[in-house]
């Protein structure tokens, strides 16, 4: 009996470490597997990089030299390895259309996309959790929030985007219809409508989950008891209900942020924002595969990173998660 407590403590700590390690290894494996699939897929895609770079009039000798330089005739695994080691050093090759370094193309656009995702994430968390708490506490609020959420989940970002442009940009003239803007304030102004369009669906998800978690927690005995003993409802909400409902809310918010990153592929296109999402679509259309490969990999990495961090937070905060290993 005396020994059992420290031992349990030790196994629990071991469990945490093991969960951390397996989660991180799993994430690395997922990224590697994704990189292989993406590279393999795009290497069989139609198009001839040599013709794209040299044009139709190049001599056979020039073609052969370039093929040699790009390593196009090497075996597949050798090409993949070459690309992978380059990518690990931040070298994603050369764009076939602009002939710039892919890394130089992506850098500034990544900043734009991150700003857009950050703004949308802020909206998702504020709106999602705000509406969720309102919907979780009272019956009247619940009906209204449920209706809003049911609608929000069903409105795809590109449909919302058209409605927002039609009303707030064209009819009212409050916001620009497209572009990414120059300077910080102008950028925020340009990215507001896109951020709203992007956040509607995920905001609805987060508020749905928050209201369910809050409602579930409010019905628990300790909350009912606290209220019965006359503790003011605001204190019960802040100190008890929300604190225990935070885990699913955190998870949903994290997943929403991961989803926002992929969602930029659609939304940037609509608002002609010069981020990596629009760059991806443009490069697909022009068969600029080095860029396509690099951007897809970056999106996958961000996606896996975010979901992995949520997993790790869950393991760190919730003792029940540790036991699962």
């Amino acid at each position, binding site marked *: 009996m005396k020994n059992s407590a420290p031992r349990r403590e030790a196994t629990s700590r071991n469990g945490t470490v093991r969960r951390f390690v397996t989660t991180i290894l799993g994430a690395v494996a*997922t990224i590697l597997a994704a990189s292989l699939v993406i590279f393999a897929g795009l290497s069989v895609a139609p198009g001839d990089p040599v013709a794209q770079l040299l044009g139709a009039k190049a001599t056979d000798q020039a073609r052969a030299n370039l093929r040699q330089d790009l390593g196009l005739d090497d075996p597949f695994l050798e090409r993949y390895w070459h690309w992978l080691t380059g990518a690990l050093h931040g070298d994603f090759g050369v764009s076939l259309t602009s002939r710039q370094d892919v890394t130089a193309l992506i850098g500034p656009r990544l900043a734009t996309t991150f700003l857009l995702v950050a703004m949308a994430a802020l909206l998702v968390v504020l709106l999602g959790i705000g509406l969720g708490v309102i919907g979780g506490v009272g019956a009247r609020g619940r009906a209204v929030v449920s209706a809003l959420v049911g609608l929000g989940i069903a409105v*795809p970002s590109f449909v919302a985007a*058209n409605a927002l442009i039609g009303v707030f940009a064209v009819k009212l003239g409050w916001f620009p*219809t497209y572009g990414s803007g120059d300077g910080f304030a102008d950028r925020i102004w340009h990215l507001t409508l896109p951020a709203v369009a992007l956040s509607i669906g995920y905001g609805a998800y987060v508020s749905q989950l928050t209201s369910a978690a809050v409602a579930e927690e409010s019905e628990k005995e300790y909350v009912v008891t606290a209220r019965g003993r006359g503790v003011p409802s605001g204190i019960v909400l802040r100190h008890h209900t929300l604190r225990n409902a935070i885990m699913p809310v955190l998870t949903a918010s994290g997943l929403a942020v991961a989803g926002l990153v992929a969602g930029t592929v659609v939304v940037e296109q609509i608002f002609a924002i010069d981020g990596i999402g629009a760059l991806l679509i443009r490069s697909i*259309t022009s*068969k600029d595969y080095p860029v*396509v490969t690099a951007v897809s990999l970056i*999106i996958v990495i961000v996606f896996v990173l975010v979901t992995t961090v949520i997993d790790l937070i869950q393991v760190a905060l919730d003792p029940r998660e540790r036991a699962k290993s």
Partner: protein
Amino acid sequence: MAVTLAAVGDVTRRRFAAMGRPALVASAVVAGALAVLAIIGPWIAPYDPDATDVLSSGQGPSARHLLGTDSLGRDILSRALAGARLSFAGPAVIVLISTVLGTALAIFSAWHGGWVDRMANRFLNVMFSVPGILVAVLSSAVFGAGFWAPVLALGVVYTPYMARAVRSVAIRERHQGYVESLQLAGMSSWRIGFRHLAPNVMPIVVAQGTYGFGTALADFAAVSFIGLGVQPPQAEWGVMVSDGRSELLDGALQQSLVAGTLIVVTVIAFNVLGAQLSTRSGGRR
């Protein structure tokens, strides 16, 4: 991770499910009507959906053109009706692919249990963490833009959702007395799987398929919208929202509004119907 991701959907579904019988009837009527429209739409369209008429372009609703015309003078009502077919065909094939793959995977792993089930589960978890829209877009890059590239990709992306829903029911059925009796009677596992397990997981398959249809329709339309799915001038709702995007700048909202509303109404109808069916199918509640 995957469990939590799917749990988000579950909560929504529970809310929809709690709305009761009127919601079931209403959503079934709307979804059914839209499905009928998708079949007969091209035949009842008042005009040729691709016929341009520059002289009557960009008109508002009138007796001749009930929903007005687009910037090329095409009748918006006709394009919406004709476009319903491709808009529905996409998600229909996506759901079909994910159902076949997901159900087979779920029954196979539930049947063998043990390490097979664990491996399948891990595989599904990895697949859950793949962003669907990215896969669809890359598929268009590899196989060329059009109807099939995104549809095949999304069919695979939706597989884990179906597999996860079916797996829990399949595991429960696996341990029912009738399975053991059939095994003792000498029936092969293939036969039990196909003739007995598959029909018993059907209700949850139908519920999940209905729910997934709405989301698949929105995703497919999104790919067409960005120009990598159905190609204009073919009529499809995502293409229509895209066509409507340039008309917005001239203050013409009709085309965006019509196609956008159709997408939203369809997604809501199938979401609610799927949730209602899933509570009535004895699956997860």
